[in-house]
């Protein structure tokens, strides 16, 4: 059951050529700038970096906690439950940018007149108390709600907004979508569709981001200005996580991400840079 000796020799030879491998896992949202940063560092500084997106933000936290990766990517803060689950781990959240979660709809819903929702309406849709767009000002069309997979930062931000905490959210059964792109595709190609998506991904062509009607009656759209000033309530921080202070290749990556070029990558992928934020 052992590999051929020749293969072993080749492997040993190549293993000597590699430095410490930096392993990263987590949110598909944060993945975009981080993966590109990793490519640049790999090309320029010959760093060995592995990036994966298993399990979304929760996967990022759990794999960092289990010691399987050195850097986690999350689009939500580390919760008290997570800290309690991994008491030996000193979660260090490094803020690299900001993003917002939008409620997106398909073209037919947008054209049908639905442009904003209140928190209560969103809750009623989530709990299947409202099932037709006509009940919120749109055409007569069944609401096709696609829920984000469990563990996705996008979902947790949504649940936090509607119910105060992901744990307080009621259990529902909707068809599931996974990453950002899958969500956009499904909503774009299904009549009456609604889902949660990173606002920078709502292109205004296939899918459209609804505004939120706040309690005071004002309507807030997920524009950059509103997200930066935190007027739009569904904003979320983009973090890279390390266990303790970052060191070695992890530090190189973090420094890059916080530096000029890294922040340009954040902006390139549609998110807000640290300096764009109001505070």
């Amino acid at each position: 059951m052992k590999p051929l000796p020749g293969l072993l020799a080749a492997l040993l030879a190549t293993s000597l050529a590699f430095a410490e491998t930096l392993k990263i896992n987590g949110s598909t949202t944060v993945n975009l700038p981080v993966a590109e940063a990793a490519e640049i560092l790999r090309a320029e500084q010959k760093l060995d970096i592995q990036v994966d997106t298993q399990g979304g933000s929760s996967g990022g936290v759990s794999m960092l906690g289990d010691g399987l990766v050195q850097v986690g990517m999350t689009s939500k803060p580390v919760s008290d439950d997570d800290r309690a689950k991994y008491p030996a781990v000193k979660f260090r959240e490094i803020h690299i940018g900001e993003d917002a979660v939008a409620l997106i709809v398909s073209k037919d819903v947008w054209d049908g007149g639905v442009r904003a929702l209140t928190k209560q309406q969103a809750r009623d849709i989530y709990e299947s108390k409202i099932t037709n767009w006509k009940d919120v000002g749109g055409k007569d069309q069944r609401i096709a709600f696609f829920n984000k997979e469990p563990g996705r930062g996008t979902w947790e931000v949504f649940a936090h907004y509607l119910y105060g905490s992901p744990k307080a959210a009621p259990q529902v059964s909707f068809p599931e979508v996974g990453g950002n792109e899958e969500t956009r595709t499904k909503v774009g190609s299904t009549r009456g569709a609604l889902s949660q998506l990173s606002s920078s991904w709502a292109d205004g062509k296939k899918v459209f981001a609804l505004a939120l009607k706040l309690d005071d009656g004002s309507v807030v759209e997920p524009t950059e200005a509103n997200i930066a000033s935190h007027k739009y309530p569904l904003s979320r921080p983009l973090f890279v996580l390390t266990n303790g202070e970052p060191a070695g290749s992890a530090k190189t990556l973090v420094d890059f991400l916080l530096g000029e070029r890294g922040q340009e990558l954040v902006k390139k992928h549609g998110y807000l840079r640290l300096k764009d934020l109001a505070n």
Partner: protein
Amino acid sequence: MRRALDLALAGLAALAAFVAIGILVGLVAVIARRGAPAVTWTFLTEQIRLVGAAGGIFWNVVGTLILLVAALAVCLPLAVAVALTERVWLRGARARRLVRTALYTLNGVPTIVLGIFGFIVLVQGCGWGKSWLAGGLVLGLGMLPTVAVALIERLHAIPAKYMEAAAALGLRQSQIVWAVLLPQARGGLLTGALLALARAAGETAPIMFTATIFAGATLPHGVKDSPVLALPYHIFILAQDSFDPAVGAKLWGAALVLLGIVFSLSLAALPSRLRAHEEAH
């Protein structure tokens, strides 16, 4: 009336055959048409860039090959052993039938179950983390029934008089195995291995928990924490997470390359299978 039935059956059967072949050939044609533009020399020799939107699939192909070699290395000794046990060492039709039934049953173990099994025992239990070897072991186990059965059938086809003659010459059982049986059955082993490899090359479920990541791995170093890239997983992730037009053609290109690998392995088994078929008839 009877003539009508005759024609009807012939017609329906022909229709069914054309539908079956049509669908299957059609889907390959779709993949070929959409993927061909993307498969260039650079595509095959470069690595992924921009999360699949640029660059090529070099390390994915390499990773798939590494997994296949490892799987074969795991599977061969086990398959040969099981086949020999069934054909040579076990007496009694009952026991032999039991082994064959067991093999057919094991062939039906869903690959996702094998993958999770590998995850529990190797990735977590042995602390390997994601490892090419874990993937190889799991794939090898999955390949075992196919290879063992192919070998058994080939051994079965060797005329009894060869073994009798060898025994009459005074050869021991083990000598008969190595000098007569296995050389004669080489074709069956080759056929089974190639077919099993063709199937293993396309598998995603066994490797996604045990051996592969999306980006960043090149050649593995050591056993622990040494994942590889793999074509099927690459396609699986991009199929869900990227319909960026830039990625589209590359996605089909990757699917076409994977199909090419799978078909090459299957076709390589063809001459041997045809020969066996000729001999049997």
